[in-house]
Protein backbone atom coordinates (compact mmCIF):
# COMPACT_ATOMS: atom_id res chain seq x y z
CA UNK A 1 0.00 0.00 0.00
CA UNK A 2 1.36 3.38 -0.98
CA UNK A 3 1.94 5.68 1.94
CA UNK A 4 1.28 9.42 1.56
CA UNK A 5 2.79 11.80 4.06
CA UNK A 6 0.78 14.37 5.97
CA UNK A 7 2.36 17.38 4.23
CA UNK A 8 1.46 15.94 0.86
CA UNK A 9 -2.11 15.21 1.98
CA UNK A 10 -2.58 18.68 3.44
CA UNK A 11 -1.22 20.43 0.34
CA UNK A 12 -3.38 18.39 -2.02
CA UNK A 13 -6.41 18.89 0.22
CA UNK A 14 -5.78 22.62 0.25
CA UNK A 15 -5.53 22.75 -3.54
CA UNK A 16 -8.81 20.88 -3.89
CA UNK A 17 -10.58 23.10 -1.37
CA UNK A 18 -9.46 26.21 -3.25
CA UNK A 19 -10.97 24.76 -6.41
CA UNK A 20 -14.21 24.12 -4.53
CA UNK A 21 -14.13 27.65 -3.16
CA UNK A 22 -13.82 28.97 -6.70
CA UNK A 23 -16.77 26.82 -7.68
CA UNK A 24 -18.84 28.13 -4.76
CA UNK A 25 -17.94 31.71 -5.70
CA UNK A 26 -18.71 31.03 -9.35
CA UNK A 27 -22.17 29.69 -8.49
CA UNK A 28 -23.00 32.09 -5.65
CA UNK A 29 -26.32 33.89 -5.50
CA UNK A 30 -26.27 37.21 -7.33
CA UNK A 31 -28.46 40.02 -8.48
CA UNK A 32 -29.19 40.30 -12.17
CA UNK A 33 -28.62 36.59 -12.72
CA UNK A 34 -25.28 37.05 -14.48
CA UNK A 35 -21.87 36.07 -13.28
CA UNK A 36 -19.29 38.60 -14.42
CA UNK A 37 -16.61 38.06 -11.81
CA UNK A 38 -13.08 37.06 -12.67
CA UNK A 39 -11.11 34.76 -10.35
CA UNK A 40 -7.53 33.65 -10.05
CA UNK A 41 -5.39 31.99 -7.44
CA UNK A 42 -1.78 32.99 -6.97
CA UNK A 43 1.32 31.11 -5.91
CA UNK A 44 4.06 31.83 -3.42
CA UNK A 45 5.95 34.21 -5.74
CA UNK A 46 2.93 36.46 -6.29
CA UNK A 47 2.05 36.33 -2.60
CA UNK A 48 5.55 37.56 -1.77
CA UNK A 49 5.09 40.42 -4.23
CA UNK A 50 1.75 41.27 -2.62
CA UNK A 51 3.27 41.11 0.85
CA UNK A 52 6.13 43.45 -0.11
CA UNK A 53 3.76 45.86 -1.81
CA UNK A 54 1.46 45.99 1.23
CA UNK A 55 4.40 46.45 3.57
CA UNK A 56 5.73 49.28 1.43
CA UNK A 57 2.48 51.19 2.02
CA UNK A 58 3.29 51.39 5.75
CA UNK A 59 3.45 55.18 5.87
CA UNK A 60 0.08 55.57 4.22
CA UNK A 61 -1.70 52.58 5.68
CA UNK A 62 -0.67 50.79 8.88
CA UNK A 63 -3.39 48.25 8.10
CA UNK A 64 -1.80 47.30 4.77
CA UNK A 65 1.63 47.12 6.41
CA UNK A 66 0.31 44.77 9.08
CA UNK A 67 -1.32 42.57 6.45
CA UNK A 68 1.92 42.55 4.43
CA UNK A 69 3.88 41.36 7.44
CA UNK A 70 1.16 38.85 8.10
CA UNK A 71 1.40 37.39 4.62
CA UNK A 72 5.15 36.83 4.96
CA UNK A 73 4.32 34.59 7.92
CA UNK A 74 1.40 33.03 6.16
CA UNK A 75 3.40 31.65 3.25
CA UNK A 76 5.68 29.72 5.58
CA UNK A 77 2.89 27.17 5.90
CA UNK A 78 0.46 25.76 3.30
CA UNK A 79 -1.80 28.57 2.15
CA UNK A 80 -3.50 29.97 -0.89
CA UNK A 81 -5.04 33.22 -2.03
CA UNK A 82 -8.17 33.43 -4.16
CA UNK A 83 -8.49 36.81 -5.85
CA UNK A 84 -11.90 37.85 -7.14
CA UNK A 85 -12.43 40.89 -9.32
CA UNK A 86 -15.09 42.54 -11.40
CA UNK A 87 -15.58 45.52 -13.67
CA UNK A 88 -17.04 48.70 -12.27
CA UNK A 89 -19.73 49.67 -14.79
CA UNK A 90 -23.38 48.77 -14.32
CA UNK A 91 -25.24 46.45 -16.66
CA UNK A 92 -28.30 46.22 -14.38
CA UNK A 93 -30.17 49.35 -15.45
CA UNK A 94 -31.68 49.53 -11.95
CA UNK A 95 -31.14 53.33 -11.81
CA UNK A 96 -31.10 53.04 -8.03
CA UNK A 97 -28.91 56.05 -7.20
CA UNK A 98 -26.65 54.29 -4.67
CA UNK A 99 -23.53 55.16 -6.69
CA UNK A 100 -24.44 58.84 -6.56
CA UNK A 101 -25.52 59.01 -10.20
CA UNK A 102 -29.14 59.23 -11.09
CA UNK A 103 -29.04 56.50 -13.72
CA UNK A 104 -26.78 53.60 -14.66
CA UNK A 105 -26.16 55.39 -17.93
CA UNK A 106 -24.80 58.42 -16.05
CA UNK A 107 -22.55 56.17 -13.98
CA UNK A 108 -21.21 54.41 -17.05
CA UNK A 109 -20.44 57.75 -18.72
CA UNK A 110 -18.71 59.24 -15.66
CA UNK A 111 -14.97 59.83 -15.79
CA UNK A 112 -12.98 56.88 -14.49
CA UNK A 113 -10.88 57.70 -11.43
CA UNK A 114 -7.66 55.73 -11.13
CA UNK A 115 -6.07 54.80 -7.84
CA UNK A 116 -3.95 52.05 -6.37
CA UNK A 117 -6.92 50.41 -4.67
CA UNK A 118 -9.76 50.43 -7.17
CA UNK A 119 -11.10 52.22 -10.20
CA UNK A 120 -14.25 54.13 -9.51
CA UNK A 121 -16.98 55.13 -9.58
CA UNK A 122 -18.49 51.69 -9.44
CA UNK A 123 -21.91 50.11 -9.40
CA UNK A 124 -23.08 49.17 -5.91
CA UNK A 125 -24.75 46.00 -7.15
CA UNK A 126 -21.63 44.79 -8.97
CA UNK A 127 -19.82 45.26 -5.67
CA UNK A 128 -22.52 43.32 -3.86
CA UNK A 129 -22.28 40.48 -6.40
CA UNK A 130 -18.49 40.35 -6.11
CA UNK A 131 -18.63 40.25 -2.32
CA UNK A 132 -21.40 37.64 -2.36
CA UNK A 133 -18.97 35.51 -4.38
CA UNK A 134 -16.17 36.17 -1.88
CA UNK A 135 -18.46 35.27 0.99
CA UNK A 136 -19.55 32.05 -0.73
CA UNK A 137 -15.88 31.11 -1.23
CA UNK A 138 -15.11 31.89 2.41
CA UNK A 139 -18.14 29.89 3.50
CA UNK A 140 -16.96 26.87 1.50
CA UNK A 141 -13.48 27.14 3.01
CA UNK A 142 -14.89 27.45 6.52
CA UNK A 143 -17.08 24.40 6.12
CA UNK A 144 -14.23 22.36 4.73
CA UNK A 145 -12.10 23.18 7.75
CA UNK A 146 -9.61 25.71 6.41
CA UNK A 147 -8.56 28.83 8.26
CA UNK A 148 -9.92 31.69 6.28
CA UNK A 149 -10.19 35.47 6.15
CA UNK A 150 -11.36 37.94 3.53
CA UNK A 151 -8.77 40.65 2.78
CA UNK A 152 -9.40 43.83 0.87
CA UNK A 153 -5.76 44.81 1.19
CA UNK A 154 -4.41 41.81 -0.72
CA UNK A 155 -7.02 42.39 -3.39
CA UNK A 156 -6.01 46.05 -3.72
CA UNK A 157 -2.36 45.01 -3.99
CA UNK A 158 -3.13 42.40 -6.66
CA UNK A 159 -4.88 45.09 -8.69
CA UNK A 160 -2.05 47.60 -8.27
CA UNK A 161 0.57 45.00 -9.22
CA UNK A 162 -1.55 43.92 -12.22
CA UNK A 163 -1.53 40.34 -10.96
CA UNK A 164 -5.22 40.29 -11.84
CA UNK A 165 -6.04 42.17 -15.02
CA UNK A 166 -9.08 43.50 -16.80
CA UNK A 167 -10.96 44.25 -13.57
CA UNK A 168 -11.65 47.45 -11.63
CA UNK A 169 -12.67 46.12 -8.21
CA UNK A 170 -10.94 43.37 -6.31
CA UNK A 171 -11.34 41.42 -3.09
CA UNK A 172 -9.38 38.39 -1.92
CA UNK A 173 -10.02 35.35 0.20
CA UNK A 174 -6.96 34.02 1.98
CA UNK A 175 -6.94 30.44 3.26
CA UNK A 176 -4.41 28.56 5.28
CA UNK A 177 -3.80 25.05 6.53
CA UNK A 178 -1.45 26.25 9.26
CA UNK A 179 -1.35 24.36 12.55
CA UNK A 180 -2.72 27.41 14.39
CA UNK A 181 -5.34 29.77 12.99
CA UNK A 182 -3.12 32.59 11.68
CA UNK A 183 -5.82 35.12 10.91
CA UNK A 184 -7.09 36.30 14.25
CA UNK A 185 -5.50 37.59 17.45
CA UNK A 186 -2.25 38.42 15.68
CA UNK A 187 -0.62 39.62 18.87
CA UNK A 188 2.89 38.78 17.82
CA UNK A 189 3.09 41.86 15.63
CA UNK A 190 3.11 44.17 18.61
CA UNK A 191 5.33 44.43 21.63
CA UNK A 192 3.49 45.27 24.85
CA UNK A 193 5.30 48.62 25.04
CA UNK A 194 4.34 49.61 21.48
CA UNK A 195 0.77 48.48 22.02
CA UNK A 196 0.44 50.52 25.21
CA UNK A 197 1.95 53.56 23.52
CA UNK A 198 -0.40 53.39 20.55
CA UNK A 199 -3.42 52.64 22.76
CA UNK A 200 -2.74 55.63 24.99
CA UNK A 201 -2.26 57.81 21.91
CA UNK A 202 -5.50 56.71 20.26
CA UNK A 203 -7.66 56.50 23.40
CA UNK A 204 -6.04 59.06 25.72
CA UNK A 205 -8.96 59.44 28.07
CA UNK A 206 -9.29 55.70 28.74
CA UNK A 207 -6.56 55.60 31.38
CA UNK A 208 -6.32 59.32 32.12
CA UNK A 209 -10.01 59.85 32.74
CA UNK A 210 -11.92 62.74 31.24
CA UNK A 211 -10.53 66.01 32.54
CA UNK A 212 -11.99 68.43 30.07
CA UNK A 213 -10.07 70.46 27.55
CA UNK A 214 -6.32 69.98 27.35
CA UNK A 215 -3.97 72.85 26.63
CA UNK A 216 -1.20 71.66 24.35
Amino acid sequence: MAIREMDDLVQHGLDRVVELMALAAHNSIRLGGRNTIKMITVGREEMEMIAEFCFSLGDMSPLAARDGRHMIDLIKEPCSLLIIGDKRRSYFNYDCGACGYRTCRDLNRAEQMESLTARGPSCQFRNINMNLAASAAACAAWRLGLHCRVFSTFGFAALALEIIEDVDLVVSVSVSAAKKDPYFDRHKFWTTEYWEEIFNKEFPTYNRGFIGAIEE
Partner: protein
Amino acid sequence: MSMERSIKQFEADRMDAVKIAARLLLASATTAPRVGGVGECTIHILDDECDIEDLCQKVEEMATDNESWQFFLRDAQMLRDADAVLLITSLRSKTDPADINCNMCGKLTCEYLREAEELPREPAVAYPGPLCIFRANNIAYAIDGMISLARNLGIDYGLFWSAGAAAMRMGLLPKNTGFAMAVGISVTEKSPFRDIPLQYAHYNEKTMHDRIIRRLWPQFRSIYS
Protein backbone atom coordinates in the same frame (compact mmCIF):
# COMPACT_ATOMS: atom_id res chain seq x y z
CA MET B 1 -57.44 13.12 15.21
CA SER B 2 -59.33 13.94 12.06
CA MET B 3 -57.51 14.57 8.84
CA GLU B 4 -58.72 18.15 8.80
CA ARG B 5 -57.40 18.86 12.26
CA SER B 6 -54.00 17.38 11.46
CA ILE B 7 -53.77 19.47 8.30
CA LYS B 8 -54.54 22.60 10.34
CA GLN B 9 -51.88 21.52 12.83
CA PHE B 10 -49.40 21.16 9.96
CA GLU B 11 -50.18 24.69 8.83
CA ALA B 12 -49.66 26.07 12.36
CA ASP B 13 -46.38 24.17 12.74
CA ARG B 14 -45.23 25.38 9.33
CA MET B 15 -45.69 28.97 10.41
CA ASP B 16 -43.82 28.25 13.65
CA ALA B 17 -41.00 26.84 11.54
CA VAL B 18 -40.93 30.09 9.54
CA LYS B 19 -40.60 32.19 12.70
CA ILE B 20 -37.81 30.01 14.08
CA ALA B 21 -36.00 29.89 10.73
CA ALA B 22 -36.23 33.68 10.32
CA ARG B 23 -34.55 34.20 13.69
CA LEU B 24 -31.83 31.68 12.93
CA LEU B 25 -31.18 33.41 9.62
CA LEU B 26 -30.95 36.70 11.52
CA ALA B 27 -28.30 35.12 13.75
CA SER B 28 -26.29 33.86 10.78
CA ALA B 29 -26.47 37.22 9.02
CA THR B 30 -25.48 39.06 12.19
CA THR B 31 -22.35 36.98 12.78
CA ALA B 32 -21.23 37.02 9.13
CA PRO B 33 -17.97 38.94 8.56
CA ARG B 34 -17.86 42.73 8.25
CA VAL B 35 -15.14 44.55 6.35
CA GLY B 36 -12.67 46.04 8.76
CA GLY B 37 -14.50 44.26 11.57
CA VAL B 38 -16.74 47.29 12.13
CA GLY B 39 -20.37 46.43 12.79
CA GLU B 40 -22.95 48.39 10.84
CA CYS B 41 -25.68 46.06 9.66
CA THR B 42 -29.02 45.43 11.31
CA ILE B 43 -31.54 42.78 10.34
CA HIS B 44 -35.28 43.21 10.74
CA ILE B 45 -37.89 40.49 10.44
CA LEU B 46 -41.36 40.95 8.98
CA ASP B 47 -43.31 37.76 9.67
CA ASP B 48 -46.79 39.20 9.95
CA GLU B 49 -48.72 38.87 6.72
CA CYS B 50 -50.29 42.31 7.10
CA ASP B 51 -46.83 43.89 7.49
CA ILE B 52 -45.64 41.99 4.42
CA GLU B 53 -48.66 43.20 2.49
CA ASP B 54 -47.91 46.82 3.45
CA LEU B 55 -44.36 46.36 2.18
CA CYS B 56 -45.59 44.78 -1.05
CA GLN B 57 -47.96 47.65 -1.68
CA LYS B 58 -45.11 50.11 -1.26
CA VAL B 59 -42.98 48.08 -3.67
CA GLU B 60 -45.84 48.17 -6.20
CA GLU B 61 -46.28 51.91 -5.69
CA MET B 62 -42.59 52.48 -6.40
CA ALA B 63 -42.86 50.63 -9.71
CA THR B 64 -44.36 53.79 -11.20
CA ASP B 65 -41.68 56.09 -9.74
CA ASN B 66 -38.99 55.08 -12.24
CA GLU B 67 -39.47 53.45 -15.61
CA SER B 68 -36.58 51.09 -14.86
CA TRP B 69 -38.51 49.64 -11.93
CA GLN B 70 -41.26 47.80 -13.78
CA PHE B 71 -39.96 44.55 -12.31
CA PHE B 72 -41.00 45.81 -8.85
CA LEU B 73 -44.52 44.61 -9.72
CA ARG B 74 -43.21 41.07 -10.14
CA ASP B 75 -41.12 41.37 -6.97
CA ALA B 76 -44.16 42.49 -4.98
CA GLN B 77 -46.13 39.52 -6.17
CA MET B 78 -43.34 37.12 -5.25
CA LEU B 79 -42.98 38.71 -1.82
CA ARG B 80 -46.71 38.37 -1.17
CA ASP B 81 -46.15 34.62 -1.23
CA ALA B 82 -43.19 34.84 1.18
CA ASP B 83 -43.82 33.62 4.72
CA ALA B 84 -41.35 36.14 6.15
CA VAL B 85 -39.18 38.96 4.85
CA LEU B 86 -35.82 39.83 6.37
CA LEU B 87 -34.55 43.35 5.80
CA ILE B 88 -30.81 43.95 5.95
CA THR B 89 -29.45 47.45 6.40
CA SER B 90 -26.15 49.25 6.11
CA LEU B 91 -26.12 52.01 8.73
CA ARG B 92 -22.72 53.56 8.03
CA SER B 93 -22.59 53.70 4.24
CA LYS B 94 -24.41 57.06 4.17
CA THR B 95 -22.98 58.85 7.17
CA ASP B 96 -19.69 57.21 8.10
CA PRO B 97 -17.31 56.33 5.23
CA ALA B 98 -14.68 53.69 5.97
CA ASP B 99 -11.78 56.19 5.82
CA ILE B 100 -9.57 53.87 3.80
CA ASN B 101 -9.67 55.93 0.59
CA CYS B 102 -10.50 52.87 -1.52
CA ASN B 103 -11.89 54.90 -4.47
CA MET B 104 -14.67 52.38 -5.17
CA CYS B 105 -17.06 55.35 -5.08
CA GLY B 106 -14.82 57.17 -7.56
CA LYS B 107 -14.12 60.08 -5.22
CA LEU B 108 -10.46 59.13 -4.56
CA THR B 109 -10.62 59.95 -0.86
CA CYS B 110 -13.27 59.62 1.83
CA GLU B 111 -13.04 63.36 2.46
CA TYR B 112 -14.15 64.04 -1.11
CA LEU B 113 -16.99 61.55 -0.65
CA ARG B 114 -18.16 63.44 2.44
CA GLU B 115 -18.17 66.66 0.41
CA ALA B 116 -19.93 65.13 -2.61
CA GLU B 117 -23.37 66.39 -3.45
CA GLU B 118 -26.09 63.97 -2.45
CA LEU B 119 -28.76 62.91 -4.90
CA PRO B 120 -32.09 64.54 -4.01
CA ARG B 121 -34.66 62.48 -2.14
CA GLU B 122 -37.01 62.13 -5.07
CA PRO B 123 -39.39 59.30 -5.92
CA ALA B 124 -37.16 58.17 -8.79
CA VAL B 125 -34.13 57.75 -6.52
CA ALA B 126 -34.12 54.56 -4.44
CA TYR B 127 -30.92 55.14 -2.49
CA PRO B 128 -29.81 58.78 -2.44
CA GLY B 129 -26.11 58.24 -3.02
CA PRO B 130 -23.22 58.45 -3.26
CA LEU B 131 -22.71 55.82 -0.59
CA CYS B 132 -19.53 54.42 0.87
CA ILE B 133 -19.42 51.30 -1.25
CA PHE B 134 -16.84 49.65 0.98
CA ARG B 135 -19.28 49.91 3.91
CA ALA B 136 -22.36 48.92 1.92
CA ASN B 137 -20.54 45.79 0.73
CA ASN B 138 -21.10 44.43 4.25
CA ILE B 139 -24.65 43.71 3.19
CA ALA B 140 -23.26 41.10 0.78
CA TYR B 141 -21.67 39.19 3.65
CA ALA B 142 -24.80 39.41 5.79
CA ILE B 143 -26.95 38.19 2.91
CA ASP B 144 -24.62 35.33 2.10
CA GLY B 145 -24.56 34.31 5.78
CA MET B 146 -28.34 34.24 5.68
CA ILE B 147 -28.55 32.32 2.43
CA SER B 148 -25.87 29.86 3.42
CA LEU B 149 -27.94 28.85 6.45
CA ALA B 150 -31.22 28.91 4.53
CA ARG B 151 -29.74 26.35 2.14
CA ASN B 152 -28.68 24.18 5.05
CA LEU B 153 -32.11 24.43 6.65
CA GLY B 154 -33.85 23.71 3.37
CA ILE B 155 -35.65 27.06 3.41
CA ASP B 156 -36.54 28.64 0.06
CA TYR B 157 -35.26 32.18 -0.37
CA GLY B 158 -35.29 35.09 -2.78
CA LEU B 159 -33.18 38.22 -2.85
CA PHE B 160 -34.84 41.59 -3.53
CA TRP B 161 -33.45 45.11 -3.47
CA SER B 162 -36.86 46.56 -4.30
CA ALA B 163 -38.25 45.63 -0.88
CA GLY B 164 -35.17 47.02 0.86
CA ALA B 165 -35.66 50.37 -0.88
CA ALA B 166 -39.40 50.29 -0.12
CA ALA B 167 -38.79 49.57 3.58
CA MET B 168 -36.42 52.54 3.73
CA ARG B 169 -39.05 54.75 2.15
CA MET B 170 -41.69 53.50 4.60
CA GLY B 171 -39.47 54.45 7.54
CA LEU B 172 -39.35 50.87 8.84
CA LEU B 173 -35.57 50.90 9.15
CA PRO B 174 -33.13 52.84 11.36
CA LYS B 175 -32.82 56.48 10.33
CA ASN B 176 -29.15 56.21 9.30
CA THR B 177 -29.84 53.44 6.81
CA GLY B 178 -28.07 54.24 3.55
CA PHE B 179 -28.62 50.97 1.77
CA ALA B 180 -30.98 48.08 2.41
CA MET B 181 -31.94 44.84 0.76
CA ALA B 182 -34.47 42.14 1.53
CA VAL B 183 -34.49 38.36 1.61
CA GLY B 184 -37.86 36.67 1.34
CA ILE B 185 -38.14 33.19 2.84
CA SER B 186 -40.72 30.52 2.35
CA VAL B 187 -41.46 27.16 3.94
CA THR B 188 -43.72 25.73 1.26
CA GLU B 189 -43.58 22.78 -1.08
CA LYS B 190 -43.18 24.98 -4.14
CA SER B 191 -40.81 27.91 -3.83
CA PRO B 192 -42.56 31.19 -4.65
CA PHE B 193 -39.20 32.58 -5.79
CA ARG B 194 -38.46 30.12 -8.60
CA ASP B 195 -40.18 29.28 -11.90
CA ILE B 196 -41.61 32.76 -12.34
CA PRO B 197 -43.46 33.02 -15.65
CA LEU B 198 -43.75 36.18 -17.72
CA GLN B 199 -46.35 38.74 -16.65
CA TYR B 200 -46.28 37.29 -13.16
CA ALA B 201 -47.78 40.46 -11.72
CA HIS B 202 -50.96 39.62 -13.66
CA TYR B 203 -50.91 35.83 -13.72
CA ASN B 204 -50.02 34.26 -10.40
CA GLU B 205 -51.49 31.95 -7.80
CA LYS B 206 -53.60 34.66 -6.21
CA THR B 207 -55.10 35.97 -9.44
CA MET B 208 -55.66 32.43 -10.72
CA HIS B 209 -57.44 31.56 -7.47
CA ASP B 210 -59.53 34.68 -7.64
CA ARG B 211 -60.42 34.16 -11.30
CA ILE B 212 -61.00 30.42 -11.36
CA ILE B 213 -62.20 29.50 -7.88
CA ARG B 214 -63.78 32.63 -6.47
CA ARG B 215 -65.34 33.93 -9.66
CA LEU B 216 -66.10 31.00 -11.98
CA TRP B 217 -66.87 28.28 -9.48
CA PRO B 218 -69.78 30.15 -7.74
CA GLN B 219 -71.31 30.82 -11.19
CA PHE B 220 -70.92 27.17 -12.12
CA ARG B 221 -72.60 26.19 -8.83
CA SER B 222 -75.49 28.59 -9.38
CA ILE B 223 -76.14 27.40 -12.88
CA TYR B 224 -75.70 23.67 -12.42
CA SER B 225 -77.28 23.20 -9.01
